[in-house]
């Protein structure tokens, strides 16, 4: 919590320093890395263990075991996700099996579970006093406990993981935008300010990019890439190993909107590889210059499968491979091939999404660190044959990182935009103003 509190303090201070009044902040939205799992004692509000962050693979063995269990093949049709190390369910199961304090709390019926949004909302509202224990539909759709079609917890799913709902307190699933479900700040500089929006980070990026119609997609280029493809009001269960998820749920008279999601393991990390391992460049921004030093890839194709290839290929027995090296190959060609690899994989995923959903790709919006490479962005549309809208990083967004290092990262600008767009007041508040907290 301290990183978030510090972030709020600094952000509000800089807001005031810019000549604004704290009273101008009428509502706040939350966005968070999804799937990361927090457990706490519902009586005291004390966390029972460190958060297990989303990329954590300690659940590998557990997943192998669950995959062999009866009913494992039916899960995806209900919740949209295949069994993997990512969903919160397997993280929670790991905690229950390996941490005595968690097990004891569960047996005594005082185990509260949540993703990071729930944990933040619970604490910002004042912890056990108010006991605000909620999550939004986008975050809930990553737990593997939620029926994607009904946007409700599903007993079949919960019992697949051997869990008893009487012993476990799950956060209430509410729409991503709500005037009162998320409560308000109980303390700090924003005391009394309402929290009116909550979206998982990838959803926030799609919303920030205004990917509101079926066939609109966003790609966040970071270390890896995350693609989200709006499929409309009916979930699409993928035949190509993509994930089905709630894109956003604005509540009221609107139905939840769904998305297909796919990720590319190596994007910015490929550029880092050229810099740190091969010494091609001294700063990652120089990648564009290096790639532009040659006219084309000179026949080089770099399959950046450092640890296999994800969607839609699912190749686990490959490693990174560069094809087409000749006497004339220069560093520029390899740099170009590295950038192109991300673009090719983006196209492959978008093609699969198009086939799965039946909605033609209408618009691709791009954000994230690597989108600052002009060359990469110029190359991208060559293959998707779509105009690409690039939303550059706004001012640095202070965003607490849930990894153990508690650093601030300036990632997806979409997250920041969620603060604006995600904060939709109910019509009861007539004189509302929305301000971005930065």
């Amino acid at each position, binding site marked *: 919590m301290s990183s978030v509190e510090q972030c709020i303090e600094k952000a509000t201070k800089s807001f005031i320093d810019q000549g604004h009044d704290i009273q101008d902040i009428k509502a706040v939205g939350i966005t968070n890395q999804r799937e990361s799992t927090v457990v706490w004692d519902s009586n005291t509000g004390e966390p029972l263990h460190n958060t297990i962050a989303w990329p954590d693979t300690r659940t590998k063995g557990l997943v192998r075991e669950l995959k062999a269990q009866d009913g494992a093949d039916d899960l995806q049709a209900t919740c949209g996700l295949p069994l993997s190390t990512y969903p919160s369910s397997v993280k929670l199961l790991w905690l229950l099996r390996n941490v005595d304090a968690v097990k004891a709390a569960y047996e005594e019926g005082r185990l509260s579970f949540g993703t990071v949004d729930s944990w933040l909302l619970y604490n910002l509202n004042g912890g056990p006093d108010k006991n605000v224990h909620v999550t939004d539909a986008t975050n809930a759709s990553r737990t593997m406990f939620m029926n994607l079609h009904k946007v409700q917890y599903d007993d079949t799913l919960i019992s697949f993981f051997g869990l008893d709902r009487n012993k476990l307190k799950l956060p209430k699933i509410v729409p991503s935008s709500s005037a009162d479900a998320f409560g308000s700040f109980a303390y700090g500089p924003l005391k009394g300010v309402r929290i009116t929006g909550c979206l998982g980070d990838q959803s926030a990026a799609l919303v920030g*990019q*205004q990917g509101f119609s079926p066939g609109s997609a966003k790609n966040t280029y970071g270390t890896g890439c995350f693609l989200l493809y709006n499929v409309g009001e009916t979930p699409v269960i993928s035949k190509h190993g993509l994930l089905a998820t709630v894109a956003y749920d604005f509540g009221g008279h609107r139905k939840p909107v769904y998305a297909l999601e796919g990720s590319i393991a190596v994007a910015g990390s490929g550029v880092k590889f050229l810099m740190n391992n091969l010494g091609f460049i001294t700063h990652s921004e120089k990648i564009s210059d290096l790639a532009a030093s040659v006219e084309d890839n000179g026949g080089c194709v770099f399959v950046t499968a450092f640890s296999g290839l994800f969607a839609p290929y699912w190749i686990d*027995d490959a490693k990174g491979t560069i094809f087409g090296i000749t006497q004339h190959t220069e560093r520029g060609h390899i740099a170009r091939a590295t950038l192109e*690899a991300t673009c*090719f994989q983006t196209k492959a995923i978008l093609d699969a999404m198009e086939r799965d959903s039946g909605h033609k790709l209408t618009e691709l919006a791009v954000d994230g660190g690597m989108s600052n490479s002009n060359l990469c962005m110029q190359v991208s549309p060559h293959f998707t044959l779509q105009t690409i809208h690039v939303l*550059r990083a706004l001012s640095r967004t202070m965003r607490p990182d849930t990894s153990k290092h508690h650093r601030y990262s300036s990632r997806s600008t979409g997250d920041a935009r969620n603060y604006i767009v995600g904060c939709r007041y109910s*019509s009861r508040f007539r004189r509302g103003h*929305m301000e971005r907290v930065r």
Partner: protein
Amino acid sequence: MDIWKEFDELKEINQKDRMIFKPDISKEESAKMFKKWGRAVEMCRGWLDADEAEGEF
């Protein structure tokens, strides 16, 4: 900024810093490059022995 009710009202938000990139090679050229990529992907299969593959997805 006021309350929004319909998506259309949001159109003007976040347009300022937007850059637009359009494809500037021919469809044929694009298809040719993507096909070559596909071949490369197929050719890198099987580098690891079955017991070395990570197999976690």
